[in-house]
């Protein structure tokens, strides 16, 4: 299995998640023959189709995430969310901004507390917006290093709107961002 790094909550870490194609078996153990049975099985992302087909079994296994296409009405996942540890939203092109809305709906309206991952054409200059919309995991675009995304996270220290990161818009915050940044 190739190793991959991601940005998780603002830091570069090895990706603990495995993407499982529809024709591959779901791994049940850590992958090491000598692993004790008490070790939890690896975290796996499956396609939406597989999730829907094998929902009960996958939910019983746990540590499962689903990869959602950007044209899905994310609210149709509402009943699945309590069973899911993660949702991966796709940026087929970085100029395709649908997943920003999907993420905000997941966080702010559906109350999803699991991991929300950005994947696809995820680049540094969109990272700030992604975190604001509720993505906790940024998977760098193919051929890019996760560390390259980090500078984008601190592009701005002031924001005007409420979003998934800060519910209050600037006009409802008790302290101006500038003072908070200085403090």
């Amino acid at each position, binding site marked *: 299995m190739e190793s991959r790094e991601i940005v998780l909550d603002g830091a570069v870490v090895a990706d603990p998640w495995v993407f499982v194609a529809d024709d591959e078996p779901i791994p049940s153990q850590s992958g090491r023959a000598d692993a004790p049975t008490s070790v939890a099985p690896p975290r796996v992302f499956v396609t939406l189709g597989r999730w829907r087909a094998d929902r009960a079994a996958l939910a019983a296994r746990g540590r499962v995430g689903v990869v959602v296409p950007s044209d899905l*009405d994310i609210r149709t996942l509402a009943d699945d969310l309590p069973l899911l540890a993660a949702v991966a939203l796709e940026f087929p092109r*970085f*100029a*395709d*901004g*649908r997943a*920003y*809305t*999907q993420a*905000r709906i997941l966080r*702010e*309206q559906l109350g999803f507390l699991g991991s929300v991952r950005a994947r696809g054409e995820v*680049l540094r*200059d*969109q990272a*700030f*917006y*992604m975190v*604001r*919309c509720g993505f906790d995991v940024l998977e760098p675009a193919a051929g890019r290093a996760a560390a390259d995304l980090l*500078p984008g996270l601190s*592009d*701005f*220290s*002031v*924001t*005007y*709107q*409420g*979003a998934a990161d800060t*519910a*209050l*818009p*600037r*006009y*409802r915050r008790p302290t*101006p*961002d*500038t*003072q908070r*940044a200085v403090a």
Partner: protein
Amino acid sequence: MYRYDEDDIRIVRERVEQFRDQVRRRLSGELSEDEFRPLRLQNGLYHQRHAYMLRVAIPYGMLSSRQLRQLAYIARRYDKGYGHISTRQNIQFNWPLLEEVPDLLSDLADVEMHAIQTSGNCIRNVTSDALAGVAGDELEDPRPYCELIRQWSTFHPEFAYLPRKFKIAVTGATVDRAAVAFHDIGLRLVRSDSGEVGFQVIVGGGLGRTPLIGQVVREFVSKRDILSYCEAVLRVYNLGGDRENKYKARIKIQLKTAGIDAFRAAVEAEWDRVRDTPIAVPEAELDRLRAFFEPPAYEAASRAAKSWDAESAVDPEFARWLRHNTSEHKVPGYRVVHISLKAPGVPPGDITADQLDALAALSDSYSFGEARTTHQQNMVLADVAQRDLADLWRGLRDAGLATPNIGTLTDMICCPGLDFCSLANAGSIAVARRIDETFQDLDELYDLGEVQLKLSGCINACGHHHIGHIGILGINKAGEEYYQIMLGGAPGDDASLGRWIGPAVAQDEIAPAVDRLVRRYVEQRANQERFIDTYRRVGAEPFKEAVYGIA
């Protein structure tokens, strides 16, 4: 006008540094042009025919004298000594070097200006009525709400990568001078049956390839809810707009395809979910913003007013300017002064660095240190005491800013065309010049009355040809520049889209064709009828015949 607080200053400064780094990465090859393009576009930087063009935001058209002076400095330092006022109240510089743009942006930030979201598929600079706050027909000054929307839309994390660009305009007046029916969202301040002032929301207007008049999606939204309503509209658009075909990607096509009822239902459903979240605007925030737009310290009418009869009698030139380039102000003793950027021989909307400086000085002396840009590509000094008009006129005349043609046929809207723009199919500035040369007799021009002539060098319609009483569109016909003529468009309360009257004509033919059109109007007009009224009454036939002869 609005003044930045520390947060506003910080965010603009951080943007400059972000863009400086993006330029550095582009120049070092770290970013490909494909990756850089959307980034520079979100900062108003286009690649044009000869060079980069930077579009600087002038939020709802408001400028201080300090900002005018800085724009003059920028025009000299980074450009060839001039700028160009666009139809969305912004100013464009045509010759900056990519490496210098970060410094240019830093110079803008020094005077609380920027180029944020002046292009790209995001929420663009909000526009308004150039007479906001001084018009007699105003229910309420729209500018505090423009500023509210400006802040909400600046770096909105969810709406930076929309299917296509998104334009919002706000008016508070009875007469629509902001063309709200031709915006993605047009907001009109209205009073509800219960007496509350809020917004009528119009969605899905626009020009371009598929010109459409916007439709009312909601008759009334209270001020508290205006951002949540806009957010709901944007969210429905971000999820549902066409992302495959850029020519079908504007919200107007989504609305038209879905139908107004289904579109409205989707917006209302989303609005129900967001309206009672913290986005609801507290009264204190509205009060804070309104305080920036309190009227200036007007003098009593008895002191400000002056009869100009004597002066006018002595100087017919002043009298002419007074009649055509000033309009009523809501405060007795004051006038609104319109500055035409359509002087003979000058590309429509262009203003030189010296003129920007002159305007700064004149605004300090006579108009509380503020000026405005208009979507007709002109400028306005909004608060001039009557007794100062003659002095102001002399100052404007010396700066070449007193061309008395406001509202006439030579007060044209015109895009930069083939001379600058890489999208254009045909020249527009040269055509504007030929038309201007044909109509140099001011008395003749005044006799023709209000004629709105709008000219675009391509189908993208930056010159708004669909809403000109006379609209002209440049096309490329087997390598030659040709021009189609449409009649009957109008932008405001009697909004309508023009219709083509016949085959395209060659560049040499266009000024004579306009001449024949207005002569036919003079023959046909009844009483005080404007060109557009005559056209609407008699139809296209007499005009077709004037241009093309009898079929």
